[in-house]
């Protein structure tokens, strides 16, 4: 007991020390940067801006002018370049290193958030009053960012509306240069802060996006290592939702690297559509791809855990080997297709043998951009996931087994057993006007029984099964 207490208190002490060190490092870096900005030599302040991975990378790769200007100043250029390279290196190893240790705005946000949390917790709750409008802002910011991202490659036209200008270092230098000019930027920043202290960091900041991108390779390495270890399901879920944010920024990164991809989304989206079962509330795939922020919130929100995100390595984060999701087909997609689809949610009925609950629309409620949109529960019927398809040859009844589970389990009463004289059987029939493709029948179907001659009898459901029911796209949907 005492030992435990001691251990605990020593743990607390150690954590406090680490915290103190981190904060002092952050304040140290902060003061250096501010000093550099305020310093009279404009070369220094201009160079300091390039500590931001976003500006540095875009400068290095895209804008030789900026590059030469920092190079021209010899020593200062060399120092900034090596400091920025170091930061990028650290970003590759540590998630959002810049955000957490270097970014002066990040520090401001953290300090302000701390104060706000302490002061206003009771009155405004954690997210403040504007929280309920978060959805709108996220929607807005994503479109704004996507549409201006290509401008990164043409700094000459980069205007105050460009994402470039919203780099934290850019904001800071602008503010310190001329407060009036920076006012709109600061206002937006402030609004973001009111929405949620971390809204800026995670939803808005373009520099954050680049850092997410930089961290991607490590994620993949980790993931593939973890894959071998075969984690438990819920761990995988957390993993996939973390990955989803990364996927989002990967998506953003790809967008900024090649504006042509953005143009082709619509076209590609249509041809890719047939592979996916989107969450209910999605009607047109191209619209969905444009709206979806790849934030993974729907996946986290889904109480039945049937949603998963398309990811780079295996197409789908499927936890199961069963063939009820189009995983196999996804794995064969081209890199370009994957790039478009990565981070978007799809329904995978194999996850934990679950289905889309009848009275649930939390995915739609969680969706910040309206990509998944259900006006109400009844809307699920219109914006269905798909429709159930029955294959006689895999049905228990076809092999003279007692079964009627699908009829009993269908939450909508869409399945009935109908007598077929030529088969001398009653078999499930699906009412296409009622079925919404919720997948309940798919996950409860015991599947084709495996009966070996007279030897081993394998209980249906005990092993991998071929089910008589599956979900397919509604035929009229395939066309539009």
């Amino acid at each position, binding site marked *: 007991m005492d030992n435990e207490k001691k251990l605990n208190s020593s743990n607390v002490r150690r954590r406090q020390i680490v915290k103190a060190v981190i904060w002092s490092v952050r304040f140290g870096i902060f003061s250096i940067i501010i000093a550099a900005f305020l310093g009279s030599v404009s070369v220094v302040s201009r160079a300091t801006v390039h500590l931001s991975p976003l500006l540095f990378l875009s400068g290095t790769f895209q804008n030789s002018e900026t590059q030469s200007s920092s190079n021209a100043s010899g020593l200062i250029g060399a120092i900034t370049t090596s400091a920025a390279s170091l930061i990028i290196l650290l970003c590759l190893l540590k998630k959002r290193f810049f955000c957490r240790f270097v970014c002066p705005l990040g520090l401001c946000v953290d300090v302000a958030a701390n104060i706000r949390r302490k002061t206003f917790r009771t009155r405004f709750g954690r997210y403040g009053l504007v929280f309920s409008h978060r959805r709108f802002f996220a929607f807005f910011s994503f479109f704004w960012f996507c549409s201006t991202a290509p401008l990164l490659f043409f700094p000459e036209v980069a205007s105050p509306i460009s994402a470039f200008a919203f780099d934290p270092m850019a904001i800071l230098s602008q503010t310190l240069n001329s407060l009036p000019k920076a006012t709109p930027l600061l206002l937006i920043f402030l609004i973001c802060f009111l929405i949620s202290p971390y809204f800026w960091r995670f939803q808005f900041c373009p520099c954050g996006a680049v850092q997410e991108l930089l961290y991607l390779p490590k994620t993949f390495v980790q993931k593939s290592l973890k894959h071998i270890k075969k984690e438990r399901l819920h761990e995988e879920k957390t993993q996939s939702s973390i990955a989803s944010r990364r996927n989002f920024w990967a998506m953003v990164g790809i967008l900024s690297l090649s504006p042509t991809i953005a143009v082709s989304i619509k076209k590609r989206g249509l041809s890719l559509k047939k592979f996916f079962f989107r969450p209910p509330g999605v009607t047109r795939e191209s619209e969905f791809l444009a709206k979806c922020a790849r934030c993974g919130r729907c996946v986290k929100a889904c109480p039945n855990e049937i949603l998963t995100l398309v990811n780079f390595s295996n197409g789908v984060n499927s936890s199961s080997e069963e063939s009820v999701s189009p995983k196999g087909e996804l794995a064969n997609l081209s890199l370009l297709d994957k790039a478009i689809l990565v981070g978007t949610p799809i329904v995978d009925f194999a996850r934990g043998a679950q289905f889309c609950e009848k009275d649930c629309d939390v995915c739609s409620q969680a969706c910040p951009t309206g990509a998944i949109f259900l006006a109400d529960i009844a809307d699920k019927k219109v914006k269905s996931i798909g429709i159930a398809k029955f294959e006689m040859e895999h049905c228990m*009844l*076809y*092999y*003279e*087994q*007692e*079964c*009627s*589970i699908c*009829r*009993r*389990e269908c939450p909508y009463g869409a399945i009935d*057993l109908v*007598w077929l004289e030529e088969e*001398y*059987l*009653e078999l499930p029939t699906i009412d296409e006007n009622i079925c919404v493709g919720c997948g309940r029948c798919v996950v*409860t179907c*015991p599947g084709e*029984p495996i*009966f*070996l*001659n*007279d030897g081993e*009898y394998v*209980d*249906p*459901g*005990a092993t991998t099964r071929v089910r008589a029911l599956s979900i397919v796209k509604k035929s009229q949907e395939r066309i539009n």
Partner: protein
Amino acid sequence: MFLSELTRRDLLKTFAFGAATFSASSLKTQSTLADFVSQKDKTVGELHDGSNANPVKLLAEGQIVRPQLSLPKISETDVLVVGGGPAGCCAAIAAARLGLKTTLVERYGHFGGLATGGLVVHILGHWTREGDKKVQVTQGLGEEMMKRLEGLPNGIVNREFGRNPTLDAETYKYLLVEMITEANVEVFLHSWAIDAIVDDAPDSTTGNPVVRGAVIQTKLGPQAILAKQTIDTTGDGDVFVPAGATHTQRLYNIGLPYRIGNLDRAKPQEGQKPPRHLGDVTPVPGVRWVNMTGPSLDGVDVKTLSKLELSHRKQIWKQIQEVRNTPGYEEVFLMETAPQIGVRITRVIEGEETLTLENAKAGKKYDDCVGIGGAWHGDHLGWQIPYRSLVPRNVENIITAGRSLSAEPLMSDVVRVIPNCWVSGHAAGVAAALAAKDGVIARNVSIPDVQKALLDQKAYLG
């Protein structure tokens, strides 16, 4: 004909004599067959002149009427169980084990109902999922039966944790005889229950008619069994319907299962897909049982049943030929078709409480829970069986169990499987016995006492 010369008094005497011999020496208790044999060649009754026969009359207006008849009483008992299927056998054994005089009536010559005579041998749904675990909710008599089958050669197969086992119909018939005689249940086989006996006066508290037993049809004509409590486990409500209990009549799949043999002599090619109509394994090597869904029709309509028997037999023959025409399976043969056509659901009582699928899925709890029902393949959680779902709304001293339990159509589908019939039968037996013992109407039996007695008999109540 000699019967026509009998006087009315003689006839009654005849019946009384028949009844006496029956109850004295019948299949009851550990009696030996020697008692029976010694009566060989005895004259039953004196002069069979048939003068007092009482045939049904065809009246001039075309009406067919049965003239009133005073019935001989073949037995008087505490608990009368009509229908010796899975539910009825459990009910009878449970009641008799509580020390009450129990009588079991069965229309055929064996026990087990659809599970034996119907060749339905796959024990579905006595498992449920509770969290991540599978739980066997069928305990008590059902579990005892499965355990005892395990001890008999070729009695049961696939009895493993979480699996649905399959039993052998003949072994189960034997086991039931063993258990029923062990429990000292009085037995009337080859006796069709054709009517309920209802007291002249309604119950003083509820005003409902009170059931006092049932009439069975025997070769010697109709005979009466009087009982303090009656349990209708005929599956078709053959007693609660004439007693006047409100019920619904349903159409449901009617099939005809059969068994095939010589599967151990089949010589399929490497990797050959077996033919379709091979059904499912049985505990007997080389023998399989083939189920049949059949169309949804009225299972108490004799025209329908006759038509189906004819049609099903043709279909079975066709299926067998299909198997025999498959290379390697030429020696497979049709061993037997079920002597009892597979009627799943017909008349379902309207109980004080009706089970619904929605409640079952939501795991609704009842104060008067007398058993836990299972799911077919662990597809959902266990559900409670309230005592009130066994009790009709408008008749006293008759309860039901098994497939005629009060349930909405989709729920009947779950209720009717064999383990759930064991469970509800067990509960009905205990409840009727306690009601008879305490001299109360079945509706008012003490639920805590029933639950306690069930737990004493190792039932599972959650």
